[in-house]
């Protein structure tokens, strides 16, 4: 097996040569922001190139299409990707949620069928957890799955389906037993094809004016029951397991990254370029952002040092999403105040600062403070699971 060092060197060489620069249109910073076919095709091609070069899924088993190397190899390649600030890997639901789950608990047939297409981005995956009436209260999902022979018949609706209209498969949280003793026990986790009769997607227009999500409707949609993961009634547990892959709390992700984190340097550059870096009032604000950025960076380092987290081992991991997403929202919001009259402009306006990038980033930042459990839900989770406070509902 190639050594990690050599592999990292190969990656360094490959990304130095192949990282695309300025495609001529604005690239999404997160997988949730893919809004146009142009962006989608660009990123899908990019992921395929990275996979074919061997730097995505390097640690996944080679018999299913992976690289057959180790997590250390993939981490080294991902690190190089970050250093080169390469475009994101867009098939995130497959790479970070469905893929690791299938490799963990899927059947041999599942692995043969799904893994390679996830890595090559030939098969786009999406996630069907949230429902229009059940957003934060995920456990109350009502989409019904009724067993009929070798199939399930699906009825209901899912919302915030990222890449919904490109999706070939969905990881679906469905209610197989409406009479279960509690709401969680009635849920099942099903790998569902999207291109079957009765499944329809409808694009949702985001607050930015762009598209990026769909609502997905199921009307007597018949899907094979062999997509069931685990057993009926285990849906909630498996959904929580996929969240752990996604957070990186378990190994198993394909690698790469799907969200670029805000770099506080960018806002310093904005302040400098707009001639405000010497304004003490601005400096006062910037220092707060620098301290915040630094503390988040250090939180990540401290989380790995057992002696420094022993009083509350779950504290740092559980606050990570809250702290980082709120910071991203704040810093993008603040950037608008550095633009004077030009903060009146938006994307595509020639007078806009950085092509309206900050405005779009600010509005898109809410996808992370709302999606995946709102900041308010995160505070409940921290309050209950770290501080031991009573439940709020």
């Amino acid at each position, binding site marked *: 097996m190639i050594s990690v060092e050599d592999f990292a060197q190969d990656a360094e060489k490959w990304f130095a040569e192949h990282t695309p620069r300025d495609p001529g249109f604005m690239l999404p910073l997160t997988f949730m922001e893919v809004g146009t076919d142009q962006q989608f095709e660009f990123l899908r091609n990019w992921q395929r190139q990275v996979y074919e070069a061997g730097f995505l899924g390097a640690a996944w088993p080679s018999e299913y299409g992976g690289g057959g190397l180790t997590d250390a190899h993939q981490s080294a390649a991902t690190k190089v990707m970050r250093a080169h600030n390469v475009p994101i890997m867009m098939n995130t639901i497959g790479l970070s949620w469905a893929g690791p789950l299938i490799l963990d608990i899927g059947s041999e047939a599942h692995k043969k069928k799904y893994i390679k297409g996830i890595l090559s981005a030939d098969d786009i995956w999406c996630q069907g957890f949230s429902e229009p009436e059940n957003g934060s209260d995920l456990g109350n999902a009502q989409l019904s799955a009724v067993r009929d022979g070798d199939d399930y018949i699906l009825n209901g609706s899912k919302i915030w389906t990222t890449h919904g209209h490109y999706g070939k498969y969905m990881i679906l949280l469905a209610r197989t037993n409406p009479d279960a003793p509690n709401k969680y026990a009635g849920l099942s986790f099903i790998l569902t094809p999207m291109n079957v009769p009765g499944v329809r997607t409808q694009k949702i227009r985001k607050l930015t004016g762009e598209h990026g999500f769909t609502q997905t409707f199921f009307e007597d949609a018949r899907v094979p029951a062999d997509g069931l993961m685990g057993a009926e009634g285990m849906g909630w547990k498996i959904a929580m397991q996929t969240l752990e892959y996604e957070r990186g709390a378990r190994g198993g992700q394909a690698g790469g990254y799907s969200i670029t984190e805000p770099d506080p340097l960018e806002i310093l550059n904005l302040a400098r370029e707009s001639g405000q870096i010497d304004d003490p009032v601005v400096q006062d604000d910037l220092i707060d952002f620098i301290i915040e950025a630094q*503390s988040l960076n250090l*939180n990540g380092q401290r989380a790995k040092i057992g002696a420094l987290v022993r009083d509350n081992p779950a*504290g740092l991991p559980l606050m990570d999403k809250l702290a980082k997403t709120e910071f991203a929202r704040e810093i993008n919001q603040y950037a608008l105040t550095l633009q004077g009259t030009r903060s009146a402009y938006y994307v595509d306006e020639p007078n806009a600062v950085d092509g309206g990038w900050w405005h779009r980033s600010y509005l898109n930042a809410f996808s992370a403070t709302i999606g995946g459990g709102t900041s308010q839900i995160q505070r409940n989770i921290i309050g209950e699971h770290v501080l031991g406070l009573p439940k709020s509902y």
Partner: protein
Amino acid sequence: MSFDPQALGRLGLTEEQVELMDVAENFCRDQTSIAAVRDMIVDKSGLDRAAHKELGQMGWFGIAIPEAYGGVGLSLAEAVPVAEQIGRRLMMVPFIPATVAAQAILTGGTPSQKETYLPQIVEHGCASVALLEPDGSFDLTAIEASAILGADGYKLSGTKTLVENLDSAKILVLSAKIKGAVRLFVMDTRLIAETAMRPEILIDETKRAYTLTLDNITLPESALMDESKAAAALQRIDLAANLLASAEQLGAAQACIDYTVDYLKTRKQFGKLIGSYQALKHTIVDAYVGYEKARSLLYAAAHSFEEQGKGEIATRMAAVGAGRALSFAADRSIQFHGGFGFTYDCDAQLYRRRAIFHDSLFGNTRWHKKKLAALLFN
């Protein structure tokens, strides 16, 4: 652009830090209690003599003093977990003044001053610093006190304030101007007349400090510290004090959050535990998140403390984080205890007062941010 996250230090921990964390956590928890601290509030000297003696026996006053002077030979990074646990229990021992005085002597003392005073500090932790003055400035170089060399030595004049635990200190490091230049002296406190000391009424009743009138004090020439190192020693005092004060404040913040959470878990109103109300739950979570972020800044500051440039930036960031964390946690703790929070019997006031005291000694948030602006943007 000067900001580079990599340049601001990484986080690391030494085995000795972990060891001291364990020992200090157990010792401070077993040695004192909030009830004992409250009993001692009325004590004039405000010194937990038993704990103080044990600290000396365990060598904690010498953690960051080289073995050549009887110390343990570690660094201030190892003093951080100790200060944190002392702060957590509001333990009434002058660990910070003694450690800071020793650092001043180490950095700016003459060889004979180091040999004379450092072993004493290791053994008794009996030292303090007299640097601040009545005008309220945090700037350690903007002082009025002066020293004029005469036939019997340096005749001092001026006034020092916030001299912590002066009544029990045997050694004092003080600043005064000689011909307009700020210089440091190290002196035997037996040269101070009882009448020159006035106990101050502090916002934090678990601390003790004095106003010291210098006018009738004459120091031998040998009390003058190395003049060429005065600036370096002042900088050392500033940063060491802020590093340890940040640790003390975060220990207190942890205790304050625990205390508040306990109340939210037991107090019922409208038939429900008040911790289930999100107005309280979310705010205490914000306090907790602030505490954890500040603790990351603290241990990064400890780790990079000795690095030129980086150490100062990391320490001032930690001071901003710690000051805000304790102030916010304690302020909300008073509020969340409702009517009880408004009483003297509620511990929330102890923590809030502690935060105000620390904000008053070696710089508050605004002061540190101003310094950071100069370091990062100029």
